[in-house]
């Protein structure tokens, strides 16, 4: 078994604890995953649609947040529209035995928005360390890529940066509607 396969198995085991949502939480997720209703009392509106008390909706969302099911509640900016037009997925081929150490160093850089170890797909794809870099200009991104390169140079066998050319879709997660409850109608912010 390769190191990657072992790690994958480990990840699967870590995730095997029962994390499934109770039916009410599931309906709450289904109803709010496209956004909160745009009115002055969004949680009350959601509560009415689920036939719950407003306090229970707030309490359930808080518990989902504590469990990490809700990462955050907030405004999701369209980064292109805000001027962050340039994003590069930088990918690096580093030795498996150093990936954790290097990944943590990369992740600690303030301009890296996500960083992951992912499996290689040889021969097409030799890279195992991914780090996403955003900027308002190509020069800004290139400057950040240069900093990453400096950090990884000694250990990195090859690397690339893949600029995005277009956003083709950006909807976020959508779980399928399981409940047939007619009150659990779509309530989109947009």
């Amino acid at each position: 078994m390769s190191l990657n396969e072992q790690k994958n198995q480990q990840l699967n085991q870590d995730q095997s604890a029962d994390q499934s949502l109770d039916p009410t939480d599931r309906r709450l997720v289904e109803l709010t995953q496209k956004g909160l209703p745009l009115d002055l009392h969004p949680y009350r509106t959601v509560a009415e649609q689920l036939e719950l008390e407003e306090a229970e909706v707030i309490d359930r969302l808080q518990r989902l947040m504590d469990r990490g099911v809700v990462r955050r509640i907030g405004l999701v900016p369209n980064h292109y529209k805000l001027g962050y037009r340039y994003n590069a997925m930088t990918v690096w081929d580093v030795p498996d035995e150093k990936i954790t150490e290097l990944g943590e160093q990369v992740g600690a850089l303030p301009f890296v928005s996500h960083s992951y170890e992912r499996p290689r797909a040889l021969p097409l794809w030799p890279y195992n360390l991914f780090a996403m870099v955003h900027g308002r200009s190509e020069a800004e991104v290139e400057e950040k890529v240069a900093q990453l390169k400096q950090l990884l140079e000694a250990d990195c066998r090859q690397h690339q940066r893949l600029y995005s050319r277009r956003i083709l879709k950006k909807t976020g997660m959508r779980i399928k509607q399981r409940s047939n409850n007619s009150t659990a109608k779509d309530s989109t912010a947009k």
Partner: protein
Amino acid sequence: MSGSSNTNRAADAAALSAEADLSSLDAIDRQLINDYQSGFPLCADPYAEIGARLGIEAEEVLSRIETLLDSGFLSRFGPLFDIEAMGGEFTLTAMEVPLERYDEVTEIVNSFDEVAHNYEREHQLNMWFVLACESREHTEEVLEQLHKASGIKPYPFPKLQEFFIGLRFDV
């Protein structure tokens, strides 16, 4: 091979969206965007709470958010869920799409609810998307369906370790 590596990035980037006109954002809009990418209040009167901090009425907070959504500065507003904390998984997946089929394949891939985002990138693997599935089996199933529907082999790159995730954009 995609022939996309010699393109003019600035032109492409400009085509990604309408020209950003940040001058239409006043100080309060900026403060809203900067301060509430997370931490939108979880209480009965969230807009009143925000309004009290920004010195405006609750109604104005709501109408500003509506305007920011309509003008495209915000793409969404509400809870962001982590399917992994529900026992599911996100899987970055790539495809090598022949340029002459790019639009058609984009439509096929985007038609899957499980595709949360999708980007065109400059590489032989020129389409990169994230699958959000409720289980490993669900992911396998969707990968197979994608392959069948498009005729193109998807390469899944599931995460083995996460080092950091903290995306935010200040204006």
